[in-house]
């Protein structure tokens, strides 16, 4: 159970407070409701590049990191296809510094040319390090445009290519800031050794004077229903053949979302899971095999991927995966197997309460989903799932015409 209080400032900024007196630390987490899905084709990678620029100084404070480090704080951020999330941890006694820094960059950035130039380079190096200079690093750059044809999920957060990042202009940066970085589009969570009254005063002092800005209305291209099997074969200088299968699954707020999550757990969570035992241990077809969901806010993907044992043909490997998927669609999972994955989910949620930062991030994310209180009842949705529901979503999902498969082959 994660306690919280909640209020909204006059400019529309939502604020949540989680009081945890057992720690001397505090966390300030701010989630902006903007991600790579809000980018335009041809200017992709921008939400993430922008996240880097948020550290390049704000209108009244030339350096973001230095004053924070000076009071014993640390910070970081991440961008996904759906959101951009920034967080600070620092000694609770110095929490006002976090308000000062975070509110000034919501007010306005410094928009320094030097920062833009440097961060374009840094992000290009990140692109190379993670996606281009690694074996299998470009899988998601290939798989996304195969699985999605219209929706902006067809590009990865890092962007479609280096050139789009290299071409980012200051005018684009300013327009992006104006459109997305305003109080109405953000959720602030303060947690740790703080009091709600104190947070309220500080929020009113530092954040409330920021103009509300214009409300961004999201209107993304719809993904048409997939009706035919898709595949792509890639050859690369990698040691092993690999396969990546993507199936369409519903959006995060769909009533069946948790059923898909448990379905992926039955197939692939840990060494008692089905794919691990059948395909890796018994049939010895794969040296690695995974199933997982992308948990995205719009229509997501259910992924099965694996690296083939040398000598195994792609046809053998793919057939064996389909046999497991067909089996879970044809036969009800046992009560024992279902209880096992439910217990595991329950346990994972209790362990997540060990970390102050995780608690703050989760509150922000569930508030974005509609109500932070959903976080505390999420487990009930998992515990009420039946074997019939698992079977039904497996039947609806694991169809050839809903699949997109990437064959990633080692150059001979």
């Amino acid at each position: 159970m994660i306690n919280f209080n909640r209020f909204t400032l006059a400019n529309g900024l939502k604020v949540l407070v989680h009081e945890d007196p057992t720690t001397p630390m505090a966390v300030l987490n701010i989630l902006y409701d903007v991600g790579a899905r809000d980018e335009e084709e041809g200017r992709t990678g921008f939400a993430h590049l922008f996240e880097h620029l948020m550290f390049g100084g704000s209108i009244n404070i030339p350096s973001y990191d230095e004053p924070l480090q000076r009071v014993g704080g640390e910070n970081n951020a991440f961008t996904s296809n759906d959101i951009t999330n920034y967080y600070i941890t620092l000694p609770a006694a110095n929490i006002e510094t976090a308000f000062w820094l975070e509110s000034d960059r919501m007010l306005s950035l410094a928009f320094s040319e030097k920062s833009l130039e440097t961060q374009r380079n840094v992000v290009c190096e990140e692109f190379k390090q993670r996606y281009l200079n690694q074996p299998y690093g470009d899988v998601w750059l290939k798989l996304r445009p195969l699985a999605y044809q219209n929706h902006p999920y067809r590009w990865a957060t890092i962007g479609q290519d280096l050139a789009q990042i290299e071409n980012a202009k200051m005018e684009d940066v300013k327009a992006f800031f104006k459109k997305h970085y305003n109080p109405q589009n953000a959720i602030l969570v303060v947690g740790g050794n703080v009091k709600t009254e104190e947070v309220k005063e500080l929020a009113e002092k530092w954040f409330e004077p920021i103009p509300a800005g214009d409300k961004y209305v999201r209107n993304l291209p719809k993904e048409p229903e997939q009706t035919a099997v898709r595949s792509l074969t890639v050859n690369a200088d990698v040691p092993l053949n690999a396969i990546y299968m993507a199936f369409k699954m519903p959006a995060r707020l769909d009533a069946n979302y948790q059923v898909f999550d448990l379905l992926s757990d039955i197939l692939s969570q840990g060494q008692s899971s089905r794919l691990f035992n059948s395909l890796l241990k018994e049939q010895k077809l794969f040296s690695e095999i995974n199933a997982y969901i992308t948990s995205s806010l719009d229509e997501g993907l259910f992924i099965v991927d694996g690296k083939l044992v040398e000598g195994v043909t792609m046809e053998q490997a793919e057939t064996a995966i389909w046999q497991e998927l067909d089996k879970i669609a044809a036969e009800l999972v046992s009560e024992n197997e279902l209880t096992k994955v439910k217990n595991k989910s329950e346990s994972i949620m209790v362990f997540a309460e060990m970390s102050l930062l995780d608690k703050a991030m989760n509150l922000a994310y569930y508030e974005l989903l509609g109500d932070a209180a959903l976080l505390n009842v999420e487990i009930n949705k998992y515990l009420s799932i039946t074997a019939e529901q698992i079977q039904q979503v497996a039947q609806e999902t694991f169809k050839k015409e809903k699949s997109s498969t990437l064959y990633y082959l080692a150059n001979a």
Partner: protein
Amino acid sequence: MLNRTVAPAFKQVNDINFIKPTAKQLKNGLPVYVVNAGDQELVRIEFIFENVNWDAQKPLQAIAVNGLINNGTKNLTAKEIAEKVDYYGAFLQTEYGADLTTITLYSLTKHLPSVLPILWSVLNESIFPQHELDIYKQNQKQKLQVSLQKNDFLARKNFANSIFGQTPYGSDISLTDYDQLQQSDLLDYFKAAFQPKNCTIIIAGKFLDKDFDVLDEVFGGAWENAGTAVKNSFQFSEQEGKDLYIEKPEALQSAIRMGNLSISRTHEDFPALQILNCVFGGYFGSRLMANIREDKGYTYGIGSGIASLKHAGYFFLATEVGADVCASALTEIEKEINILRSDLIADEELNLVRNFMLGSLLGSLENAFSHADKFKSIHFAGLGYDYYDNYIHTVKNITAERLKAVANQYLDWNAMTRVVVGKK
């Protein structure tokens, strides 16, 4: 009117409270340390074994035992072990380190009576079935093949081997080492290493006397294993600096790793060297990050550290930089080292680093697990909590003059092994 140009007042961190564990013993003498803290009804129990009987001809012996220890006992198959652990929502993790092998159980406290007997079987009755060993060998070889295509992996491996040779700290594992793994070698190692006299249990979370009684009931009797164990011991000597270059003509980025043998946690200069390291490459605002990432944009990240092992310490620096700017990055790194040796660190920067390190220490004591981790760092180095008192005192009081002297003693480009994988 709110003045946003002025920073709010702040305080330096003053009180840092460590939760020290309670020392106990099982009936058979096995030492147990308990950090009983936290609101959640969960617990982490670590069984920590010192690595023994190092044989350079069989570098994978201890690693493979660790990898396969939960893959079959006298009465349970690998799948049955995993199913039982998973059924109770528990997690069983095995981790091999250069000095210690750790088998960790994460569990809701209420399930300990059901889960601990499974763990007892794993630690006492593992049989390392041949068919599991065959799968392990095949799949680990495939993983290694993928790793060998990563420049940062090659840089790390060549750096460690250059400094530490064929020891657990630097052993250059190749595909053929997997082919030579024998079931009998695994059983020999298991019998020697997995005994109460070679084990320490560290517990963190909600763990009361009644839970200790359950633990004692399961693990406090005689264990099955009784092989001969000789603790590993190594000595290393300082080397001349040198360049190792592995050319990859197609590389978009070059991996750089450099460093040298240094001091470990037990040395009196260690806290001072940690502060110097922080300034140099130990945090986001470090000189390496400020220059090579934030000013030049050569890399996504660059950092340095001091690793403290049981029989050695070493200093290292690692980054991946654009292949076209690799030579420039190396020049800048050398420049930054030499500035620390020739110039005093300004008060403003040093005070910032002091505050940052104190805040970071405070933040690293988040929950019962992290308090137990702090204990492990000193316990296995043979140190007491006065280590942290001294560390905090040094962070608060060290002078720029002293740091310059430390830089001259421990930070020397010419003494480093400098590995580049990619293009120069």
